[in-house]
């Protein structure tokens, strides 16, 4: 494995008004590894992902993708880097007005100029790779169950064979069995493509399944990063509290007592 980082965040900071969300994030993701960021709600996991994707502009710091600083990029240069990415959104974010196959093939048709017939064939193949038959291709997103929506979103994320795939809470809202199915599909797809994966989740079962390394974010900083095998003996009380889901510990939730 190359030691050069595929994605490197250096001192990334982001605030919304007076609320500091990211307070100098430093994190490297190596080529072809699967790194999962864990952390409580509102700790900046999604903001980190959106900064890497260019959907949010950090207030400070650098984000390097294959050695290029994407924060400073705009226009066609940024679009060129974006073509390396695939993204599975938490709520799937499928386009309601388009059939399933067109959702999967959207980036191929509009981003890469593929002919519709050719793009449809690719879409049907990708749907097959996530366990969905060709009969699903002409359905609308509103006709699909939650698990099917996630699978279609996964097919869309891998449709253009991206070098880097982002997964935003891939198993949220699914039953445990379907969550495991999605986890298996993620592992299969990432391995088949040889892609680099950056995921964010609260789901510790998902972390154990899809991660090579894990980073925990708390109060806008990475407070622990290590191999998934070390997660249970990290020696970090914040990580211990989080992975065991305990209310008692150094992470204090603000709740109103009755």
């Amino acid at each position, binding site marked *: 494995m190359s030691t050069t980082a595929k994605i490197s965040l250096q001192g990334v900071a982001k605030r919304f008004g007076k609320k500091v969300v990211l307070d100098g994030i430093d994190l490297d993701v190596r080529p072809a590894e699967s790194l999962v960021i864990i952390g409580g709600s509102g700790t900046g996991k999604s903001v980190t992902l959106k900064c890497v*994707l260019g959907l949010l502009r950090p207030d400070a710091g650098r984000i390097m993708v294959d050695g290029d600083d994407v924060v400073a990029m705009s226009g066609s240069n940024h*679009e060129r880097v974006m073509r390396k990415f695939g993204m599975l959104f938490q709520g799937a974010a499928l386009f309601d007005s388009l059939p399933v196959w067109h959702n999967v093939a959207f980036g191929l048709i509009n981003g890469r100029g593929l002919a519709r017939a050719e793009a449809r064939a690719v879409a049907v193949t990708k749907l097959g790779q996530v366990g969905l038959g060709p009969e699903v291709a002409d359905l609308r997103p509103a006709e699909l169950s939650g698990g099917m929506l996630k699978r279609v979103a996964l097919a869309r994320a891998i449709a253009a064979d991206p070098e880097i795939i982002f997964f935003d809470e891939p198993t949220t809202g699914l039953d445990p069995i379907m969550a495991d199915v999605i986890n298996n599909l993620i592992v299969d797809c990432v391995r088949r493509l040889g892609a680099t994966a950056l995921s964010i989740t609260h789901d510790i079962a998902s972390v154990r399944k899809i991660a090579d390394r894990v980073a925990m974010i708390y109060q806008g900083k990475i407070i622990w990063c290590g191999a998934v095998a070390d997660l249970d003996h990290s020696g970090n009380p914040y990580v211990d509290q989080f992975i065991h889901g305990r209310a008692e510990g150094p992470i204090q939730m603000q709740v109103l007592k009755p």
Partner: protein
Amino acid sequence: MDVLAALGRVVLGFAAATGRLGLFTGHALSHVFRPPYFLGQVAQQMVSIGYFSLPVVGLTALFTGMALALQIFEGSSRFNAEGTVAFVVAIGMTRELAPVLGGLMVAGRVGAAMAAEIGTMRVTDQIDALMTLSTNPFKYLITPRLVAGVTMVPFLVAVGDAIGIFGGYTISVQLLDFNSSTYIRNTFDILENIDIIAGLVKAAVFGFIVTLMGCYHGYHSQGGAQGVGAATTNAVVSASILILTSNLVVTQLFFSR
């Protein structure tokens, strides 16, 4: 001091909103001149705005033309000027009523729908998804709607002109015993190109306003269903106010002496 601070906040907020709208408009217009173009999206929006708004604009024009004929007949009969009905209906419809009422109806139908659709796409991450799929949301969502609005609202108003005048004709001939050929001759005699052109220019301006407000408020909506609802309301209210304001400006530009 509190009053001054509150006033200052309002002024700063207004200035910021105006700046945001200006940047949004400039960004959207810049994509009109920069390929790639999503012609399928433009065609789809032209059908949505032009074809599907025909019934509402047509009915509005028809009943407005009819009511106008009745009103003018009743009013002008007070000084024995009933013959002016055809003139007033023709000029009133082409210069003012078809563009303004058509624009307001399109704001209610199209502007609200655009704000709701784009707003829902915003709060469900579909706009972010577009960007991750190498598709510029301005090129795909905003510019096609602006182009369709500017081109199709004049078409709707042209149809509304004809239907409104026909409504006035129907009432005048069927109810008020006007001579059919005289009414038609009077209508064509009084109408000048500038009357129709001014109405169509207004319609293009209104089409731009309606689609811009729908897209702007939808694109910046936040906070789930409530945010989308607020965006829809804001789109219709702001478009309606801007239509009435710009109507005065365009009228002044065309007809002030």
